[in-house]
């Protein structure tokens, strides 16, 4: 047995060496992630089978057997030389403008395009966390954009933009407008409600609590019915806002209550020391909130807000029960058109809607993952 080492001095620094072969490369990755235990092996096999059963038929229907061109139902019917017909994309292609703009007059549709572009610009500005002048971006997104969009889409005869009644709006336009209002209008209201719920003034707190709990306790569809059926009963006829506006108010009210709770969670995550340090500098309540608390609280709530936005984006389809022509409704109206009556028309229409919503929601989900990763890197402190 060697003698016990009682004194030691490191002779030379040990240089870093590459890891053993078994720890890197494809094989190691596969073993670590897919075949690390018997349960993992079973799950891997199950997933492969599931993919095998679902993906090939889907690809076959949506792509391989699909009909890409054509002018009416004839092109999408089964014929002796082509017994199996996949998705009828020709139908979607022909109706695409209707799906996007609804009955918006053809010569005015450039206004919708500008709206889409302006909205995309605003979303880009808001979601890019390192963007320059984000304060200005907020002003643009929450103030300038809503007003300008309304003028642009509804029209202003004085500016040479003919009025387009909201009854003519439809498709993606309506879906996007409803979803955007559900965020852009609802978020500021939600922030105020969240601040109100944490206010030291009992009346303000009580109002916020009642509002939030009441709206959260009611399904969106009820709020929409209330807004579109009951609101006109209370208001004189001249005051009664149009159908789309009523639905928008309902969606914004509904969404504000949910966002209020999301924002409140963020406010609660900010340490008390932040409030105290800001107050000790002589900043008043609103400045403390605007300069110190909300920038931090809103940033950590982005993933939760995106989660709410995903839910809301899909919930916008509910407006069609009160007779508004959103994307789903335009597809509904088109798929029963005799001109395109084939066995695959409905499935294709729904597949298109599904794809649209999936892409939107998946993009939001990826964004929220990205923000989470950034927050986890310790941006906060």
């Amino acid at each position: 047995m060697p003698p016990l080492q009682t004194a030691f001095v490191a002779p030379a620094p040990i240089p870093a060496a590459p890891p053993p072969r078994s720890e890197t490369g494809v094989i190691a990755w596969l073993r670590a992630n897919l075949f690390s235990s018997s349960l993992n092996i079973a799950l891997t096999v199950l997933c492969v089978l599931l993919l095998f059963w679902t993906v090939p038929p889907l690809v076959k229907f949506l792509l391989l057997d699909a009909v890409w061109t054509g002018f009416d139902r004839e092109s999408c019917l089964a014929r002796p030389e082509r017994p199996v017909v996949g998705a009828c994309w020709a139908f979607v292609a022909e109706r695409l403008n209707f799906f996007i703009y609804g009955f918006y007059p053809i010569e005015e549709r450039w206004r919708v395009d500008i709206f889409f572009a302006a909205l995309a610009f605003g979303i880009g500005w808001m979601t890019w966390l390192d963007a320059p002048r984000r304060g200005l971006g907020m002003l643009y997104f929450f103030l300038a954009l809503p007003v300008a969009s309304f003028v642009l889409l509804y029209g202003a005869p004085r500016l040479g933009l003919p009025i387009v009644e909201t009854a003519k709006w439809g498709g993606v336009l309506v879906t996007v407008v409803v979803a955007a209002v559900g965020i852009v209008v609802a978020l500021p209201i939600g922030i105020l409600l969240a601040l109100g719920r944490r206010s030291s003034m009992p009346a303000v707190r009580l109002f916020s609590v009642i509002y939030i709990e009441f709206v959260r306790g009611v399904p969106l569809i009820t709020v929409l019915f209330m807004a579109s059926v009951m609101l006109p009963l209370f208001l004189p006829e001249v005051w009664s806002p149009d159908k789309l506006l009523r639905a928008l108010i309902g969606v914004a009210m509904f969404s504000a209550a949910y966002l209020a709770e999301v924002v409140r969670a963020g406010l609660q995550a900010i340490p008390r020391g932040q409030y105290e340090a800001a107050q000790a500098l002589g900043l008043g309540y609103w400045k403390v909130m605007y300069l110190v608390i909300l920038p931090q609280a809103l940033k950590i709530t982005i993933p939760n807000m995106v989660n709410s936005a995903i839910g809301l984006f899909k919930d916008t389809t509910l407006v069609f029960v009160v007779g508004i022509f959103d994307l789903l409704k335009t597809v509904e109206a088109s798929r029963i058109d005799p001109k395109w009556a084939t066995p695959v028309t409905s499935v294709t229409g729904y597949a298109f809607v599904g794809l649209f919503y999936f892409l939107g929601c998946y993009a939001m989900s990826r964004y929220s993952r990205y923000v989470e990763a950034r927050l986890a890197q310790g941006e906060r402190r």
Partner: protein
Amino acid sequence: MSGASNAIAGFLKPAPLRTPVAVEMIGVNKWFGDFHVLRDINLKVMGGERIVICGPSGSGKSTLIRCINRLEEHQRGRIIVDGVELTDDVKKIEEVRREIGMVFQQFNLFPHLTVLENLTLAPVWVRHLPKREAEEIARHYLRRVKIPEQADKYPAQLSGGQQQRVAIARALCMNPKIMLFDEPTSALDPEMVKEVLDVMIELANDGMTMIVVSHEMGFARQVADRMVFMDEGQIIEVNAPDAFFANPQHERTKLFLSQILH
């Protein structure tokens, strides 16, 4: 310091008090629920004086200095800061807070802002200084606390000692008449305590009115005009540091000092 223009010259030294008495507490009582945390506090701090408050944890020393800028509300008695009495009047409270700088145990820098932005936030939004002047003042105080090169970093990129020095500079940028320190070195690694205390000693030498809650007895001996010892919400003993350390009068003070000065 050269380069400081006349416009900001007034911001670079302690602001004069309007009254000879900086802070006066008369019969102050405070409760947290049923807990009587401050009991009949009477304390008068003169302009330019340095007071160090010590005592066991839970004795109410932090609560006492937090009452001076109304981060805590007192329920009975009067607190008068440079001639302004603290009441429910929010305007008065904000006026008092503008004139008092505070440094916290946990630094409480704003993590979403750079060091320079932390320093200019209040001068711009509360004092309504132009941004350029606020930055000039901020850079002056960063030099004073010896970290001018960190201006564009975020607080998370700094060591604890550097963060606390930024916090001191942030308070000084408001050109306060009185500075409150709530255990400023308690959350620091041992090697970083000295760099913060050095800044505080320099500040004391400039004639700033300071009220410091601290257990750094070496610092207290060096800068304090008076020591205040608290226990169970009461002021037990007040004395000049020499007499306080050499010849404590109250049994409780003797016991406390024997336990912290081994």
